């Protein structure tokens, strides 16, 4: 199968899975902004998604997307290290024209996936998971009150009351920002949808998009911390 056997095919899978994750991030970020406007509206969104079949199916597709992207990232990175050879250069010097993010996509992605694990343990484990397995014990309780599976707004303020979480989330989102500033135009380049005219445009779009998405997420973190 050329999608896995050829270098360009493997890159195509990377690019399509990456763009799919970008699409998801856009929805997720827009949804989160609702939390700043109104707690009730946000919990309404949480209740609408909850553990309904469409939310569960969406989560499964998403997990598959992350898995494919991650698996191919490992495969490509290992193949590329082998192609580079055993003997490394003794002296290397940075090229100002080469973006730092482009040389560190795997490390940035690894930070993203670690952050994702932490994030799932904060929210998914107390929202969708308890409903899926039908266990009340998994609901979060801070001694004073128990947070309902659809009380997303409550979980936000509970999580970000802790400054350690705020720092973790901001670092995580910064790594995502770097990953996206390179990833987005790189995906268009991989698809072949690029040329000398579009290159600066895609770079500008990537920078703006990454900034809007990451700041959108960070805004909710800060809101949770101060509200």
């Amino acid at each position, binding site marked *: 199968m050329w999608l896995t056997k050829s*270098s360009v095919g493997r890159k195509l899978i990377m690019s399509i899975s990456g763009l799919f994750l970008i699409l998801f991030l856009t929805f997720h970020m827009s949804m989160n902004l609702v939390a700043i406007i109104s707690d009730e509206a946000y919990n309404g969104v949480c209740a609408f998604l909850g553990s309904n079949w469409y939310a569960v199916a969406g989560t499964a597709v998403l997990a598959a997307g992350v898995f494919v992207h991650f698996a191919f990232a490992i495969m490509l990175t290992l193949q590329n290290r082998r192609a*580079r050879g055993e003997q490394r*250069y003794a002296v290397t010097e940075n090229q100002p024209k080469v973006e730092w993010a482009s040389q560190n996509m795997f490390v940035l992605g690894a930070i993203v996936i670690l952050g994702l694990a932490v994030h799932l343990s904060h929210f998914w484990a107390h929202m969708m998971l308890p409903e899926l397995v039908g266990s009340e014990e998994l609901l979060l309780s801070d001694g004073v009150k128990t947070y309902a599976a659809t009380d997303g707004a409550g979980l936000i303020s509970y999580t970000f009351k802790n400054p350690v979480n705020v720092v973790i989330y901001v670092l995580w989102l910064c790594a995502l920002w770097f990953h996206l500033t390179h990833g987005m135009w790189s995906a268009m380049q991989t698809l072949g949808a690029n040329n000398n005219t579009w290159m600066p445009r895609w770079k500008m779009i990537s920078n703006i998009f990454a900034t809007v998405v990451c700041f959108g997420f960070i805004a909710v973190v800060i809101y949770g911390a101060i509200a």
Partner: protein
Amino acid sequence: MEKNINITLKVWRQRGPQEKGAFETHQLENISTESSFLEMLDVLNEKLVKGGQEPVVFDHDCREGICGMCSLYINGHPHGKDTEVTTCQLHMRRFNDGDTITIEPWRSAAFPVIRDLMVDRSAYDKIMQAGGYTSVNTGGIPDANAIPIPKTIADEAMDAASCIGCGACVAACKNGSAMLFVSAKVSQLALLPQGKVEAAKRVKAMIAKMDELGFGNCTNTRACEAECPKGVSISNIARLNREFICAKLKD
């Protein structure tokens, strides 16, 4: 203005592909800043031969930036720090008195060291043999105006054709990817009517050969474009991807 400088060279020495290599340090005095980098290496080799030592092996031919034979990774850059010049066009006026210059061969699994600074770049020839040509019978020389080609397209094809096959793109790439070279060779033909006929077959054959020879997967870092002595653009890589994906989807 001409002056003479004293420099220290750290040169990679390796007796053969399987042998272990190491750096060797040499002092050179009174090197004219008017001389080219390769002339400076000629001075070193003369000194070595006179002292009864083996000269340093390095590739070169035209010494005017057109053949693509010269290589060398100089102070962390293929073809040295200057932009859009080959090693043979690099001059000693770019260096200062007292400088230490580290010279390494291209390092990439698909370009094994033959000896010292000389690497085996025949992988590029194999990619060309896989499809980097047109097999149509062209007959006599046609009238230049017989096939109308828009100026912008002709210019783009010409820019792609300026690739001299030196391998600096692979040497610069952290993934050891040959995509800039292959994209230039695919583009110079795919852009023109004569090359379009076999474009789909060509791109599939050349990419398959490139993968088979152990070059890496391009992750669009752009190090190749920044170091290419001919300024070949990665917009050619976008075209290569486009040609390849379309050809595969049509199958």
